[in-house]
């Protein structure tokens, strides 16, 4: 079965080469779009995905959007100490001027944290934050693409403050901007945001008593889970939906293209199949070698497509949100593989229906 499949494909190189090429193109597109979808998604919500917070207290009329939610938390800090398991989360948009470097401004999301708090992700390079009022910041490593390196200074016009980059962290992006962590002490000492305000209050494990007591102090809010907050991040659902729609249609297209190709090839070979059946080949053998060809073609094309997509990660500019994720890649490759088998199976019905008797009396 295997040898017959190979010999046929080697003989009709152009025909099978074309199918392999088309499958490769569609598969590459699927993989690249999926990489882009993941990359964009990461840029928008990675900070929330990575966060240990499980429940968020948001304003009732905020539609779960953190940027439209806000509370004064001075009373809460006094009534319910943070030691009970909650923390305020402030996402403060800033625009930095990278001093001594490019003129363009760097958008970022500033989050004040206590270095011992669960919201603080730690550093992958450089030094941790200190709990004093020094204007040191930890920035997400995507800022490297903008030319930011350790000990660079970033100036914020709005507050007239200059921050020093002391460390890098990773997977901390929010709303397509890198997250910048600054010490809580410095944040309030410099009055970067006027009072003790927070966009939301988060807890890290289910605790109904705590939720109730926070609710009774803050009022005018509700508890929602992390998934609801992620869904409400502006642009996230629409971005992901349109990209996933593209992937879905690409896969549907590939079913039809491959099914049509294999159907035509099968029809071209119906006479051969009739002869082979007449001299004693069984349906199982004929369908088997047809499927074998599809398996060989798709394994080859998908393999090349994965390599191509991987090489794209080197070619694409560094700031491009593109995530080559093995889980996603193998999921979509597997899906494309199944789809090609499915496309080929559609023509096996024709093989079964071939009547070996047609081999006889061809001219009559």
């Amino acid at each position, binding site marked *: 079965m295997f040898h017959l499949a190979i*010999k046929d494909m080697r003989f009709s190189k152009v025909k099978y080469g074309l199918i392999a090429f088309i499958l490769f193109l569609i598969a590459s597109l699927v993989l690249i779009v999926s990489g882009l979808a993941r990359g964009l998604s990461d840029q928008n919500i990675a900070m929330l995905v990575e966060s240990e917070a499980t429940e968020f207290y948001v304003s009732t009329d905020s539609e779960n959007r953190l940027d439209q939610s806000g509370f004064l938390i001075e009373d809460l800090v006094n009534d319910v100490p943070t030691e009970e398991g909650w923390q305020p989360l402030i996402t403060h948009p800033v625009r930095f001027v990278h001093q001594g470097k490019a003129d363009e401004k760097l958008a970022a999301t500033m989050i004040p944290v206590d270095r011992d708090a669960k919201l603080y992700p730690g550093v992958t390079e450089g030094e941790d934050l200190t709990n004093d009022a020094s204007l040191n910041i930890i920035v997400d490593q995507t800022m490297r693409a903008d030319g930011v390196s350790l000990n660079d200074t970033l100036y914020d016009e709005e507050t007239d403050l200059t921050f020093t980059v002391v460390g890098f962290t990773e997977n901390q992006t929010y709303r397509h901007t890198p997250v910048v962590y600054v010490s809580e002490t410095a944040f309030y000492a410099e009055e970067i945001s006027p009072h003790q305000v927070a966009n939301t209050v988060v807890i890290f494990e289910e605790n109904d008593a705590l939720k109730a007591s926070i609710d009774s102090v803050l009022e005018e809010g509700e508890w929602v889970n992390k998934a609801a907050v992620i869904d409400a991040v502006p642009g996230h659902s629409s971005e992901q939906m349109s990209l996933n729609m593209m992937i879905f249609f690409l896969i549907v297209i590939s079913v039809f293209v491959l099914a049509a190709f294999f159907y035509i090839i099968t029809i071209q070979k119906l006479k051969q199949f009739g002869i082979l*059946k*007449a*001299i004693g080949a069984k349906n199982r053998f004929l369908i088997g070698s047809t499927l074998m060809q599809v398996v060989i073609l798709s394994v080859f094309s998908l393999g090349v497509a994965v390599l191509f997509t991987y090489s794209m990660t080197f070619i694409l500019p560094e700031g491009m949100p593109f995530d080559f994720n093995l889980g996603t890649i193998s999921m979509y490759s597997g899906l494309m593989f199944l789809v090609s088998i499915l496309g080929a199976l559609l023509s096996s019905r024709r093989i079964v229906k071939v009547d070996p008797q047609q*081999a*006889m009396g061809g001219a*009559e």
Partner: protein
Amino acid sequence: MTLPLEVKQINKRFKDGETYIDVLKAIDFEIKKGEFVAIVGPSGSGKSTLLSIIGALLSTDDGDVLINGKSVKNLDEGQRSDVRLNDIGFIFQTAELLPYLHAEDQLDLVAKLNNMDKKERKERAKALLTDVGLEKRRKHYPHQLSGGEKQRVAVARAFMNDPALILADEPTASLDEDRSHEIVSLIKQEVKAKDKAAIMVTHDESLLTYCDRVFRMKDHHLIEDK
């Protein structure tokens, strides 16, 4: 001793609109080993239908066909397929080779379907291609062979699984006169050398001299020339 082929009282009707047309009526004959038999008759007389029934490609309405003593009447499609693979060698009007296999692989394929071991397959294919005079063209693809050479490969392929019965359906239909005589004498030579039974359907009277017995289709009956 079992006969390679016994045909017992075959009738075959085809439906034509509301009525039935008799194609074959009371066909009854047998062939011994080493016999090369011809069936002649005009187009549409039912020669190919008869050959299809004998070749387990088509079922009969009445009667039975015994190949090597085994009835093919109540076999399912898979078992018929096995009978065609093991007990019958087919030669068609045109060679009907697979375009992507060279001569030796054409023979190798049918033996492989029959699970013959690799060494035996190689040896048999080589010997048979030598028999039909193609030892130098074993690695040639169909498009590199002439019409006569292709039909020689087809003849060799028919003998590959050592079948009891060879069925040739107008094997010279696509060949010129000289080539036709070559092919038919080649079939005869192989049938005699390997002691097989063979039936050739033809309408070329000049080829009948190669055959031991001649049957004619007449009014849906099969009558032997005496």
